[in-house]
C-alpha cells in the first residue's frame, strides 16, 4: 500500500518537474519520511513532545532555529522529514526552508542528504503550487459547469415524455404538493387508481397538485 502510493507520487512528481529528474530519484530513495502523512503540522507537534526536551524543541520546530545548537542531529533530521512531507500537501514553503538552511549550518552528519533533498524541495514546492492544484480545481469547475445544464430536461416519470413533448401534445406539467413533477394526464390517472404520489407514495387527492410553468 504505502509503497504503491510512494511510487505513484514519485511518478507524478517526475512528470511535474521539468528539470533535474535524476536528482530527484536519488533524493527519494534516501528519504525515509516520505510515507504520506496528511497533516504535517500535527506530526511536527508530536515529534516535538516525544523526542526532544519540550520547550526548546517547540521553539525550534515552529519558529526560528537560530538557537538550536543544543539539539542533536536526530532532531534536526526529524524536522527535515517533516519538511519533505510538507511538500506533498501544499504548505507555506518559507518556514521549512529557513529551518533547513540553519540545519546545514550546524554541520551535522546528515547534512549531505539534507542538502540534496533541500534543492529538490524548493523546486517541488514551486511546481506544486503552480500546476497541479489549479488543474484539479479547474476540472471540478468544468464538470460543474457542464453537468448542470443538461439536467434541465424534465421528464414525466410515468410516460417518459419530456416537457417539450408534453407541451407539444397540449398537456400541462403539474407538481404534487410533495414536489414531484408529472404530466397532468399521468398524475390524474395515477391518483385515481392509487390515491398516492407515484414517486414518494405520499397520500394525494386530485386537489393536491398544481400546474407549473417553466
Amino acid at each position, binding site marked *: 500500500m504505502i509503497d504503491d502510493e510512494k511510487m505513484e507520487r514519485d511518478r507524478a512528481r517526475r512528470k511535474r518537474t521539468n528539470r533535474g529528474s535524476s536528482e530527484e530519484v536519488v533524493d527519494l530513495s534516501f528519504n525515509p519520511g516520505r510515507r504520506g502523512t496528511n497533516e504535517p503540522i500535527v506530526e511536527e507537534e508530536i515529534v516535538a513532545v516525544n523526542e526532544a526536551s519540550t520547550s526548546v524543541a517547540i521553539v525550534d520546530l515552529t519558529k526560528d532555529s537560530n538557537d538550536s545548537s543544543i539539539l542533536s542531529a536526530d532532531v534536526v533530521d526529524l524536522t527535515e522529514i517533516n519538511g519533505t512531507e510538507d511538500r506533498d500537501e501544499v504548505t507555506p514553503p518559507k518556514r521549512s526552508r529557513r529551518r533547513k538552511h540553519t540545519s546545514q549550518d550546524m554541520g551535522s552528519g546528515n547534512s549531505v542528504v539534507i542538502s540534496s533533498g533541500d534543492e529538490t524541495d524548493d523546486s517541488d514546492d514551486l511546481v506544486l503550487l503552480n500546476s497541479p492544484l489549479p488543474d484539479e480545481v479547474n476540472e471540478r469547475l468544468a464538470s460543474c459547469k457542464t453537468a448542470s445544464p443538461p439536467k434541465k430536461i424534465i421528464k414525466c*416519470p*410515468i*410516460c*417518459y*415524455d419530456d416537457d417539450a413533448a408534453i407541451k407539444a401534445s397540449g398537456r400541462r406539467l403539474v407538481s404534487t404538493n410533495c414536489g414531484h413533477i408529472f404530466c397532468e394526464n*399521468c398524475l390524474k*390517472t*395515477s391518483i385515481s*387508481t*392509487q390515491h*398516492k404520489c*407515484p*414517486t414518494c*407514495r405520499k397520500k394525494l387527492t386530485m386537489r393536491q397538485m398544481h400546474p407549473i410553468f417553466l
Partner: protein
Amino acid sequence: MSSGLPRRIIKETQRLMTEPVSGISAVPDEQNARYFHVHIAGPKDSPFEGGNFKLELFLPEDYPMAAPKVRFVTKIYHPNIDKLGRICLDILKDKWSPALQIRTVLLSIQALLSAPNPDDPLANDVAEQWKMNESKAIETAREWTRVHAH
C-alpha cells in the same frame, strides 16, 4: 389504448437493451412485445450464486398503472417464491407505483434472492425450514440451484 404499444414500453425496452443491468437480461418476445424472457444470475454470496434463473414477465394492458406480472420459470428454493414460481414482493402488489419500471422490478427480485424473508412467506414449508434450520435450508437452496438453475 390498444392502438399499438405505448411509447413508454418502447422506451423502456430500448433502454433495457442499450444499458442492461449487470446479472439481468430481459428480452421481449418476438410475437408479443409485452412479454419478456428474463434471466437473473444468482447473486454473489447467496445460496443461489452460480445459478441462472429464468423468469417470465408480462406487462398488462394497464401497465404502468398496474404492476408487471413476474414469475420464476426455474425451480427455486426460496421462502418468498412458491412452487409455481410466484413471487411475494410488495412492489409487485400494493406497493406498485407507475414510477417503477421493469428494470427496478428485476433489481428488486435480484435483491430478494440475496435477502430471503421467511417472516413474510409464500412457500410455507420452505419458510418454516428456513426459520427452524437456516443452514440446512441454505444447503437445500444451493442443491436446487445446482440441479435446476443452469
